[in-house]
């Protein structure tokens, strides 16, 4: 067998040997350890990455495995119907609270982001951004305490007024709460909590609007607001949507604020009387009391799984929107 490679190899081998220096070279002699180090290090890095995927898979597996007891009883077989009857008021309550939060927070958050990116004095805009980020730094339990002790009582007269004048709408029917610990108060607190999230995503994307587009709009005689609607918003649409979705994801899973603010009860359409509950609050209030291995615990883990799936869908949609528009908007 004579191949061109073989005929070359002796020449290649002899060539360096001709000019090889007989000394120990530290760079080449200790190399075998270096190869090992490279392998071990890259292996560890890969392992860490895979570990994250496995953890996420384990979250899903463990939750499903432990929630079997909620939908299956040995004597009766599947009790899916029973579980659904337990779960659906909680799901709807969670959605109501998150929806209130979104409706209140989105316009304010977009406004604040616009203020930071286009209206505030340029030298101050960074510090103002930090100020808004402080809202995100406050722990959720503190928000819960604030909502329970300050916001709730402050909203009681508002609820009374709404009930008096708009009581014919089912949303404002029923007995107005005297402590203010209602699903609406919880929604307001959630809105405050997701405000900095939506703001920071929107701010990032507003800042990235091409300067040329903005200047072109202004040069054509557009007012500042017309420039924003014509140049900034079309560019940032995907970013705004994904910011709102991320905020929704946070609002859905927020526990402590709701657990403290809301005095939970049965599902009602009224926003101003006590009642309704959300999945995270239900788990936080019920789990410490549930004996391990009981059906109650399985039930709580099962609604936790429902919450996990809902937030997973919301977050994946948000990321998907961002990734789809990545090429021409830079929202990442």
């Amino acid at each position, binding site marked *: 067998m004579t191949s061109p490679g073989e005929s070359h190899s002796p020449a290649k081998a002899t060539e360096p040997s001709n000019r090889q220096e007989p000394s120990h070279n530290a*760079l080449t002699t200790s190399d075998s350890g270096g*190869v090992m*180090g*490279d392998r071990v*290090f*890259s292996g560890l890095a*890969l*392992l*860490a*990455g*895979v570990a*994250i*995927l496995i*953890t*996420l898979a*384990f*979250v899903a597996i*463990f939750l499903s495995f432990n929630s079997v007891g909620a939908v299956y009883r040995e004597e009766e077989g599947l009790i899916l119907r029973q579980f659904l009857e337990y779960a659906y008021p909680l799901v709807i309550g969670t959605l109501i609270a998150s929806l209130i939060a979104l409706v209140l927070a989105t316009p*304010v*958050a977009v406004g604040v982001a616009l*203020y930071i990116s286009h*209206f505030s004095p340029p030298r101050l805009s960074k510090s103002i951004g930090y*100020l808004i980020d402080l*809202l995100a*730094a*406050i*722990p*959720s*339990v*503190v*928000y819960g*305490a*604030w909502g329970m*002790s300050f916001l709730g009582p402050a909203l009681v007269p508002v609820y009374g007024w709404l009930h008096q004048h708009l009581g014919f709408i089912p949303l404002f029917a029923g007995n107005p709460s005297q402590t203010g610990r209602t699903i609406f108060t919880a929604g307001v607190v959630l809105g405050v909590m997701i405000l900095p999230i939506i*703001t920071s995503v929107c701010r990032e994307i507003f800042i990235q609007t091409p300067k040329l587009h903005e200047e072109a709009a202004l040069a054509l005689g557009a*007012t*500042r607001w*017309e420039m*924003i609607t014509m140049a900034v918003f079309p560019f940032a649409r995907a970013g705004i949507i994904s910011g709102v979705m991320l905020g929704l994801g*946070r609002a*859905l*899973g927020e*526990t*402590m604020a709701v*657990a*403290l603010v809301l005095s939970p009860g049965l599902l009602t359409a009224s926003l101003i009387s006590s009642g309704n509950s959300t999945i*995270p609050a239900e788990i*936080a*209030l019920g*789990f*410490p009391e549930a004996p*391990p*291995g009981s059906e109650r615990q399985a039930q709580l*883990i099962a609604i*936790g799984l429902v*919450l*996990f799936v809902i*937030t997973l869908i919301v*977050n994946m949609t948000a*990321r998907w929107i961002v990734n789809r528009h990545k090429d021409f908007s830079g929202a990442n």
Partner: protein
Amino acid sequence: MSQTQQQLTSASVEGPAGPARQNDFDPSSILRPTSLTQNRMPWWTGLAVLAVSALFGAALSSLISFNFALWFVFTAVLYVMISYAVTRAKVNRRQARDKMWKNLVYLAFIIALLPLFSVIWSVTSIGIPGLLEPGFLASDMQGIDGTTDQRSQEEGAPVLGGIRHALVGSLLITLTATFISVPIGLMTSIYLVEYARGGKLSRAITFFVDVMTGIPSIVAGLFGAAAMGWFLGVGNSLGLPLPSRSTMGITAAIALSVLMIPVVVRTTEEMLRVVPNELREASYALGVRKWRTILKVVIPTAISGIAAGVTLAIARVIGETAPILVTAGFVVSNNWNLFQGWMTALPVYIFRQFQNPTSPNFSDPSHQRAWAAALVLIIIVMGLNLTARIIATIFAPKKTGR
């Protein structure tokens, strides 16, 4: 005199090429025609509108029942409406719309600041008396029951009890979570930045790390409890000497790691990506192995950003309540052992003091303790945030002077 007059007239007829240019003719009348400036409003218009709307706002709110919140609302609404109307009458519709939206954006900013100041004000104003109570930081809740709180509320005895056990629990749990998640998070971001070449696996990891940032904290807590319960069940059936109940500090640390890892990955990945490629190439050119390059060149360059990111991640998880509540429970006394027995963290302490006051009928002392603990927690979290910013700015790699 009459001759120059004559020249000027002829020049204006002849056009700019004429000799009239040398005369005292004001060019600004051409450069700045009055039509562009005539639609401007005097500078005091905004103030005047604000004064008028404040006045009417006060009047309207006192029609119902005067309070500052109502006054603020009416003033804001009136200000936006009146300034729109004035601009529309004086200038034009487009400028009026611009003005209105500008006012609304400013209003949004003020609205966003209100809860921030309200929260900080309420926590500091109520929390400080509790914090100044002697022994608040140095004692735990052992021996504090309904009667001691009743004495405090009814007879004015000092409020006893403190947060030492909660501080210990928070410290242990958060540190353990940091020790678990920083190596995993850092190695993952090294994989993403240095080793992965945009393959399927790296894209999957990036995507799922993003998804993981959105996991509800309570779900992370449930995962921790369920996973540890399963692990202990298997271990016990094999006859290993393990505790029988999964409620302990290490479970909470695992649950917090689930929340912390994605934050660490995101921030460190960003920091590793901004390390200039020239540094890596220079290192390779000297014959240095890749792993040595990463350890000796890439990470030291990015270390300030990494440290800041880790500090921010700690700040995020130290305020988490729900996962610790369902995994570590709550006790009244000190527990230094992560692997045995229940453990209280500071946020859980706050939650319990509000939700289940030590004495249900005399809840004031409990609330005072809770607000003081909330103040301590806010100080810790804000301090960590500040530290992160300081680390990021002071220890940032030099950008010039190479």
